[in-house]
């Protein structure tokens, strides 16, 4: 088991370096907007741009630049470059007064984590029972109703759902004043205040995912319920409840854990961009939208790498968890 984890860790490290290279290539080798020009502002003279270019080291060979970039990202203490503030030095933002990208991301991360964690708990709390009931009462009216409802939620875009939810329920612009409105997260000062302000975003973000997961739990359960070992469990004289909740669910949820890890990784990496934008939540996703709008290249680059980092880490986490959940994996 330890060997397995070490092997996976080493692979994760290799993946991260590769991802860094790809991200670096996209933003520095392929023709994009010139960071120096962007930074210099509208009425800068060619000399000023040249000075900025030199200060950023943009005239150095690309490989040297990549080396410096890698060093910033991975080395804990700056050794060569004096301005490197590692680890995770991702450069400085162009439009936010040269604030280090790392600082911006770390500043934005808590809101995203809060949003994603809450939504995840909510969608699993909905998806598991709905999936199980639909599977056990497969083809019943209840099953068909929930599955059609879930299809509707899957089909509804998050931004549309978010706007409709705000229109209906937000305390400032809504028809019925139930939930705090846009921007209430930033204004909330207490933990419970923040929880309250997140209720609507959680529901909106969880709606589509809960629907997808409910369908997935259902199909997994239906498949597992026809396994021979379920017949054995029944033949042993176990109650149907125990057969379903212990024997079947244990098997059905194992592949879902994989999916969950990847989805949470994606959301943390900035896939909550729409929800955060609609509800004006100061998270990584919203920052991504801002950065793209302003062509803030170092920031975009930082967020992309950071997102990739999350996905690699969650992949690793899922693999290890899977080995824990499925004893057969450990011995391969």
């Amino acid at each position, binding site marked *: 088991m330890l060997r397995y984890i070490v092997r996976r860790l080493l692979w994760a490290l290799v993946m991260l370096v590769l991802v860094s290279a790809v991200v670096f290539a996209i933003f520095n080798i392929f023709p994009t907007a010139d960071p120096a020009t962007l930074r210099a502002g509208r009425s800068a003279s060619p000399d000023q741009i040249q000075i900025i270019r030199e200060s950023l080291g943009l005239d150095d060979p690309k490989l040297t630049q990549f080396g410096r970039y890698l060093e910033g990202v991975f080395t804990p203490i700056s050794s060569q470059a004096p301005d490197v503030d590692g680890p995770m030095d991702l450069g400085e933002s162009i439009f936010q007064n040269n604030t280090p990208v790392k600082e911006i991301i770390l500043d934005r991360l808590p809101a995203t984590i809060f949003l994603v964690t809450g939504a995840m708990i909510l969608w699993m709390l909905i998806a598991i029972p709905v999936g199980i009931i639909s599977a056990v009462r497969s083809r019943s009216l209840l099953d068909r109703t929930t599955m059609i409802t879930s299809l509707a939620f899957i089909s509804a875009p998050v931004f549309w759902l978010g706007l409709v939810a705000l229109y209906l329920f937000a305390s400032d612009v809504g028809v019925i004043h139930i939930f705090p409105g846009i921007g209430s997260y930033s204004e909330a000062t207490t933990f419970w205040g923040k929880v309250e302000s997140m209720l609507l975003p959680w529901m909106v973000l969880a709606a589509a995912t809960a629907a997808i997961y409910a369908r997935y739990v259902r199909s997994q359960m239906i498949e597992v319920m026809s*396994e*021979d*070992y379920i*017949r*054995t*469990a*029944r*033949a*042993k*004289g*176990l*109650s*149907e409840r125990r057969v379903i909740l212990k*024997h079947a669910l*244990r*098997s059905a949820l*194992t592949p879902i854990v994989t999916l969950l890890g990847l989805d949470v990784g994606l959301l943390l990496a900035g896939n909550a961009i729409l929800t955060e934008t609609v509800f004006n939540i100061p998270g990584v996703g919203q920052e991504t939208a801002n950065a793209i709008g302003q062509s803030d290249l170092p920031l975009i680059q930082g967020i992309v790498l950071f997102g990739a980092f999350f996905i690699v880490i969650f992949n690793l986490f899922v693999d290890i968890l899977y080995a824990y*959940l*499925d*004893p*057969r994996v450990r*011995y391969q």
Partner: protein
Amino acid sequence: MSAAAGHLLEVQDLHVSFDTEDGVVKAVDGVSFAVERGKTLGIVGESGSGKSVANMTILGLTRAENAEISGRILFEGRDLIGLSDDELQGVRGNDIAMIFQDPLTSLHPFFKIGAQLVEAIQAHSQTGDDEARERSIELLRLVGIPDPERRFGEYPHEFSGGMRQRAMIAMALTNDPKLLIADEPTTALDVTIQAQILRLVERLQEELGMAMIIITHDLGVIAEVADDVVVMYGGRIVEQGTLEEIFYDPQHPYTWGLLGSLTRTDRPRRSGRLSQIAGQPPSLIAPPTGCHFRPRCPHEFSKCPKVPPLEARSGSATHLDRCWLEVEKRRTLRVLAEGEIGLEERVTGNP
């Protein structure tokens, strides 16, 4: 007829059918048999003959919304068909236990062998964890698993096929069942392991005084362990009798075919190749009218489109068959060569 006669289990006129999208599947079509205490009943037939469905129905494992079950299944005088799901749970794994064909897929891959045994014990009694653990280890030892203390904490995939089936048997024995139903217990195993498992089952049956139903498509298995034999075809019993009656005086052409396709190494074969019964098993959705074996039978004649009743025709009251052929004629038809019983290959092409 009933419990007063001393039968442990008596199945009477059992019908099981499933309503599927393709039509109604008549899996079991009026089957009756009885199992005596301490005895072994062998049920033989090919895939789709209804042998597994009939036995799973005894434990209520075929209960489903689309299933239609009728008849009586008397276990110690109590009709299991009428029991509620909860009542039936008390019978499963307790009075009647079942083991299945493939021990790899029949054990839960994520739970340790020991935990699965303990669960079976605790499903039917208020046994403490330590006591259940000890009992489990003792059972693993009883079925011949070496080093049971260590094996208790291992997962099914760490067991070999034969060891897994032994563990399955141990799990079935946890609550001292009066009847053990073994559904193709050796089919998925290596030939050498098959013999070991059969010997184990026989030994345990003797030691524990259980009755047993062994379901198989292999007459060799039947010959080793059964006292009485039921031959099933297309959802019906076509012949039943004692082991001797079925092997030495088979009455139904299908039984001849089964006997003829046994691989015998003790005498040279007539044709040098393995014989088989021509044709396919009948569709259970639209079975042939009359005798179900009719389309594959080389001895079919004018009476066959009518269903022959299951009757004693050969002189013994325990030996029943479902064939219109005259008994005298059968004795000549079934002999393919000196001392060799079999079914003549059907010369005409299949319909």
